[in-house]
């Protein structure tokens, strides 16, 4: 063996598979293809789906989910989960309303609402990252807490008198295109998160934590701080989504966006993120969100009730998590057969160990 200072004895090829293979043979691609297929099918067969308004309404509907899916993806990749996002939306919505009602300008109120989101995220993050509590339990608790504060502040009344120009901002489109304005902040955030997750040392840490947090810790990744940051992001982006939601519907209510957390998580898992952490890419997730959005839009146009849509989303969710382990199980069946007939050590095993 050469000494640690000697010149490299050999070099390695960087990749085991050609580029196209590494990109095309992935879970993400599958989701994207499926989404495209659904869109094409709807365009062909769903009356009015090809209509002028569809794109605008579709994007407006899924915007909050698109937004929250960004931080949620990172959170789930670290192996944690945040069930409190919808409640944070509700809380920021209510704060926006209450503060605006108290005579504050919409931007100022929105800023404070974002701050509140940050605080909510900080509470989650502290309890999970530093106290070391399970994120499931914590965020079930804060789900109730944040929603409770929202409802407590406003009861079942609603605040609806938002200055027109801000409401228009939420519902307006870019120029006279069909793209809603909200897609601009989303695009910015999306780019930011893609860089953060896929092209930064921080992102590498996120994956390592998800795959094996102990090893990450041993390698000097600051596990606690990473998780803290992610929950802060999750909180503030949820608050942003809540503000958009409020302005779009022009009503601040305590029960706004109830149940959105399920849709977000469903979309993220559908997009190929492993609930066990460590696996998943953002483009798959975004495709997942679009898929769910297109489905419900098309089904509504077909006058299918929301219940059926829920059933389909639920089935997609279960299927998307079950599928890998079903395949794995099927795979594990094969060697069993081999063991039935006592054979000598299999040649491929020898091959595998040839370089030991």
């Amino acid at each position, binding site marked *: *063996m*050469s*000494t*640690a*200072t*000697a010149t*490299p*004895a*050999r*070099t*390695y*090829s*960087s*990749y*085991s598979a050609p580029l196209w293979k590494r990109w095309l043979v992935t879970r993400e691609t599958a989701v994207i293809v499926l989404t495209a297929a659904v869109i094409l099918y709807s365009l062909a067969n769903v009356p009015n789906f090809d209509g002028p308004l569809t794109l605008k309404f579709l994007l407006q509907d899924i915007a909050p989910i698109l937004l929250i899916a960004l931080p949620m993806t990172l959170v789930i990749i670290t192996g944690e989960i945040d069930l409190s996002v919808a409640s944070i939306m509700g809380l920021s919505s209510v704060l926006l309303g209450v503060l605006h009602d108290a005579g504050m300008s919409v931007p100022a109120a929105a800023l404070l609402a974002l701050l509140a989101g940050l605080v909510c995220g900080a509470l989650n993050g502290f309890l999970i990252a530093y106290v070391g509590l399970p994120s499931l339990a914590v965020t079930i608790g804060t789900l109730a807490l944040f929603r409770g504060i929202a409802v407590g502040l406003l009861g079942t009344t609603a605040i609806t008198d938002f200055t027109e120009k801000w409401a228009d901002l939420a519902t307006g489109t870019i120029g006279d295109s069909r793209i809603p304005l909200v897609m601009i902040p989303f695009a910015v955030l999306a780019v930011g998160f893609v*860089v953060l997750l896929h*092209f*930064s*040392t*921080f992102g*590498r840490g996120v*994956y*390592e934590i998800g*795959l*094996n947090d*102990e*090893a*990450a*810790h*041993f*390698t*000097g990744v*600051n596990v606690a701080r990473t998780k803290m940051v992610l929950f802060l992001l999750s909180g503030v982006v949820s608050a942003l989504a809540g503000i958009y939601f409020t302005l779009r519907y022009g009503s601040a209510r305590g029960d706004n966006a109830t149940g959105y957390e399920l849709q977000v998580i469903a979309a993220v898992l559908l997009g190929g993120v492993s609930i066990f952490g*460590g696996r998943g890419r953002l483009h798959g997730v975004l495709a997942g969100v679009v898929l769910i959005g297109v489905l419900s839009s098309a089904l509504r146009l077909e006058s299918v009730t929301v219940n059926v849509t829920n059933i389909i989303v639920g089935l997609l969710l279960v299927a998307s998590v079950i599928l890998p382990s079903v395949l794995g199980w099927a795979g594990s069946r094969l*060697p*069993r057969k*081999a*063991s*039935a007939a*006592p*054979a*000598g*050590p*299999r040649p491929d*095993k020898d091959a*595998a*160990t040839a*370089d*030991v």
Partner: protein
Amino acid sequence: MPTSNTAAPVLALRDVSKSFGPVVALRAGSISVEAGSIHALIGENGAGKSTLVKVVAGVHRRDSGTFELDGEAVDFGSTAESKQAGIAVIYQEPTLFPDLSVTENIFMGRQPLARGRRIDRQAMYVEAEGLFQRLGVRIDPRRPAEGLSIADQQIIEIAKAISLDARLLVMDEPTAALSGVEVERLFAVARSLRDEGRALVFISHRFDEVFALCDTVTVMRDGSYVDTRRVDETTPSDLVSLMVGRDVDDLFPKTPAEVGEPVLQVRGLTRAGVFHDINLDVRAGEIVGLAGLVGAGRSEVARAVFGVDAYDSGTVTMSGKPVKARDPRSAINAGMAFIPEDRRKQGLVIDSSVAGNVAAVIRRSIAKAGLITGSMENRAAGPWAARLEVKTSALDMNAATMSGGNQQKVVIAKWLATNPKLLIIDEPTRGIDVGTKSEVHRLLSELAGQGLAILMISSELPEVLGMADRVLVLCEGHLTAELDRADATPEAVMHAATHQLEDAR
């Protein structure tokens, strides 16, 4: 192997193989155990002993080979089935239910029942007391299993196994954490079981135990059966050469290097319940060996020094400068590198690429403005992988697809890439093949020669004695001896590693 003269052997494995993905844990394992005999199974770390045991227990399903119990072919899909068939197993690492009482741990699933299929707790406690009596220990049957010392945990496992009154009892390194007294009691029990006509398999790294207890011994190397001998017809040195497969003396080529300034200084390091008032220095160019029984707390000390674990009091300084507690980053920045004992769980991110692993620690320095791409990692990782001659087809291969030895090389590469001043290495050669083993040893002494300070933890006495300039011995979290290379004899180390336990009685 010896053909059984009378009835079929209780346990007979032939050419059993088991792989985990590409890692071949067991290539051609064979063993044949007679009733009324205690059969030793020995081999170096990673020889495949535990894997073989787990195949017998039904934890793993063999890929190929034959498996017979009392002459009938069997194929266990679960541990429940093997239990049914009368096999009791003590696994290498204790598997207890921390929340439950010691007694429940022993009788789970087969508790004595009173009327109405109600669990008869009283009877259960009495029975547990009986078992502990037989093993000559005093553990409160009502206390929770949580927080037991490794040794006590091991004793619970033993109690569990013998209470099953199985026809075949397999013990995977049951004595690794036990003191002399406890070992004696265990042996007494084992012998009485043998005299009842049961078959026992006993795995240990300590030859004295093998020769004291067993009648037959099977040797394994690199996952394959090597030979089976009657104990009274063989000698330790025979066994060693069978295990290692070559002459022993060229195994530990420690080249003396001149020792420089102290690099690491640890003073009064203490963590309640784990280790106490640890003082140690490691100087440049010096290899310090840290010896002791499993559970002595060596790894805990190392982890605390490196900052992955917290400690209650004490100080750690690198070449004069204090290192922040509970902060691996500052330890790394101070020039420490830590190769932990468990590769798969702590050493590397097993499901990540070779490049990703090698570049993991130096990521920040190779990144441009915090941004990093796969190709950057590959460029940085390539040379280091090459220096350690890591065998892989490409840098984006999953680390999980590599053999134990290559995985260890990846871990070493990843830390050498940080060019450290101090290298802490826990169980450097556990579970790696003989070839790589000596490569690692040569590398270590070369690094020391280049002035690197090395703190080496090892459960293998020959390794410690062969490699270390100085040997520190840890016993139940206390430093009990500091021996120079000259006077570090097996006896001296073993005594220091256990004497405190003797005193306690």
